[in-house]
């Protein structure tokens, strides 16, 4: 697996924000702050994983990158060229950036065969060169549905979950995209066949030099597949690092919480969770850092100002005041969170507290 992420980004998101306006009955209109100011780069031949709980905005982010959802603000750059926010030239964009959805039982049309599903994108995007069957066969081979003749005329209900997801991936590959956005591509699949699909994505990264976005709630699979992991919490990007570094030395208290909660059979003893509770309502997210009401290390400043993105080490950054330098004593005053100070400190020791001395240089 490639560890280095050096290639220039194919797709870049700058300060993407999405606010959904909702109205319920006669109540006044409210705003859901689903994604706030997220910047992300997807380099060629690399898998970037977005990890977060449900409601963290990770799927909204993937859909904005696929231009299914129009961002409230922010910009998208494809090969360094700004993509207009509106719906114009939508088809040209979808010829470069394709989305694979979570549920292969719902994303394939049950009344159509595999052949139909693959023919549609080929025709719409004029990818045929006359040899439609040959193109489809090579597509099925690329997703390891071999021999293609056995699958081409099957209907979705005749295929297993893993095979269906492979068809969905083949459909996305039909237009020869440069970017593949995969939103929880394996979470609906049986455990024993998940790795097969993950390995297929890893293969496509090498062989087709795809820039892949892997959206998941499973941090262990992100560590396995991705070159870089970004962690989202309550619509914000809280940490970004090469995948092994992120799981081995997490810098943000939320990442530490997530890692301590994840199942890990090799763990010698039960973990202690630092920062219990649930994510906040996104209608009225907490001021300052959105994690501060749960954070065992919260300080006065965390309640007032949004944390800066601080570089912890090369390629590893965290949006957390703990890593910022030059905080005044008043700002650094610990908040009395609902968590009792005793256990919180203990837990912090167990999960390796973010050291405040680790070369805090502000990014950007």
């Amino acid at each position, binding site marked *: *697996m490639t560890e280095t992420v050096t290639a220039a980004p194919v797709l870049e998101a700058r300060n993407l924000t999405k606010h959904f306006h909702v109205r319920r009955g006669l109540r006044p209109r409210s705003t859901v702050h689903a994604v706030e100011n997220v910047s992300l780069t997807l380099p060629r031949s690399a898998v970037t994983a977005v990890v977060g*709980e*449900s409601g963290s905005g990770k799927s909204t982010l993937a859909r904005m990158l696929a231009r299914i959802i129009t961002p409230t603000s922010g910009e998208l750059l494809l090969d360094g060229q700004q993509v207009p926010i509106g719906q114009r030239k939508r088809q040209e964009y979808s010829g470069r950036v394709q989305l694979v959805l979570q549920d292969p039982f719902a994303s394939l049309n049950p009344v159509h065969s595999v052949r139909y599903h693959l023919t549609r994108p080929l025709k719409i995007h004029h990818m045929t060169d006359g040899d439609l069957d040959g193109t489809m066969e090579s597509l099925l081979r690329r997703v390891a549905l071999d021999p293609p003749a056995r699958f081409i005329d099957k209907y979705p209900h005749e295929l*297993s*979950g*893993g*095979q269906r997801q492979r068809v969905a991936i083949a459909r996305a590959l039909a237009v020869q995209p440069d970017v593949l956005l995969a939103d929880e591509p394996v979470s609906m699949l*049986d*455990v*024993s*066949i*998940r*790795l*097969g699909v993950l*390995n297929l994505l*890893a293969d496509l990264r090498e062989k087709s030099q795809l820039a892949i976005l892997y959206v998941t*709630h499973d*941090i*262990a*699979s992100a*560590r*396995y597949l991705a070159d870089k992991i970004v962690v989202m919490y309550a619509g914000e990007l809280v940490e970004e690092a090469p*995948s*092994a570094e992120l*799981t*081995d030395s997490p810098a943000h208290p939320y990442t530490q*919480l*997530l*890692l*301590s*909660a*994840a*199942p*890990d*059979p*090799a*763990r010698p003893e*039960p*973990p202690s*969770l630092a*920062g*219990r509770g*649930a994510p906040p309502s996104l209608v009225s997210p907490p001021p300052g850092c959105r994690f501060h009401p749960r954070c065992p290390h919260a300080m006065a400043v965390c309640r007032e100002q949004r944390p800066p993105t601080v570089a912890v080490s090369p390629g590893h950054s965290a949006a957390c005041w703990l890593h910022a330098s030059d905080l005044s004593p008043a700002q650094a005053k610990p908040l009395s969170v609902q968590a009792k100070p005793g256990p919180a400190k203990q837990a912090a020791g167990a999960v390796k507290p973010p050291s405040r001395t680790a070369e805090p240089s502000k990014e950007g």
Partner: protein
Amino acid sequence: MSAGHVVAPVTAGDGEVSRPAHQGDPVLEIRGLCVDYGWGEEAVHAVVDANLTLRRGQVLGLAGESGSGKSTLAYAATRLLREPGVITGGEVLFHSRPNAQSGPDAMAGSADLLDLNEGDLQRIRWSEISVVMQSALNALNPVATIGHQIEDVLKAHRPDLNRAGRIRRATELLEMVGITGDRLGSYPHELSGGMRQRAMIAMGLALEPQVVIMDEPTTALDVVTQREILEELVRLRDELGFAALFITHDLSLLIELADEIAVMYAGRLVERAGSESLFRAPRHPYTYGLLNSFPPMHGERKAMTGIAGSPPDLRSIPSGCAFHPRCLHAMDRCSVDVPELVPLSTGPLPHGSSPREVACWLHDPQSAEPVPEELNQPDPADPVSPEEEKA
């Protein structure tokens, strides 16, 4: 978190709360259970000859993929199976030991759940054996408050309690699982997914049953919530001493939680062992493959393969060992003879445990083939490792 809550007995008897004094004794014994869906030629064999023992105070994990028959096994054992499911054989022995929480007409002694009539079953359900379902949103009544639903359980099984007593007990139960008492008046849709699941667990424990069956209770939840609920569950188990059958597809989670794990594949139990033994020294190739389908959280990142192929359709299960088409070590006889689940060792065992079992021809003593190295790792539960024995 309401740590350290001790649930007071509801019955106003001598005030004696029975604490689990018989940890490790079998409480539910499933013997040769067979379940079909449909009849005659068309019948699909969803569970074939399942043998499992659930012990007091222990968590028994039942792992398997979708369609492996793990939920069917649990529903058949509790007589909750719906048409067209048919129990075609076996017995489910329930060794009851009523505690102070049990009602006046509690059953004592042993009984075969498959022989009981509806009336007896009704008395046992909730009070001695309860089930926590996977989807709390579907299992809870959407038009009744949480408090009302817990009260219903108490009303049906504790006629001696008046309304005030029921409300007091319902509040106590919610606080026991970490929900504040003022949530009694909330409807299921007003609670988060984690809170709904907690409410379900509170309801399952309302009458302090001896056995709690949990079918994927945390699968739909986020990891932090899942971890909180599991912590709660382990604490309650220690406090109340019930036995739990925990069904999930997430083997990595079970290893942390369960005392013992049984693995199912295509309707059959293929391996059963203590969780540490199963994790460090799996004996069945399917267990080994399943364990290698969960990427590790530590160490070097290396390519893993999972298991080739996909789980079989129960309508056309492969002959012999159902796993043989996906097995790396399949031999000729694997496609012909069905391996039985047999004990691997016969040595003396501590109280409250049974020898690990595996259903695989590789471990047949008469087999000429050597056992592959990865399926012959030293078992951490063994006093002497096989290598030392040889030396």
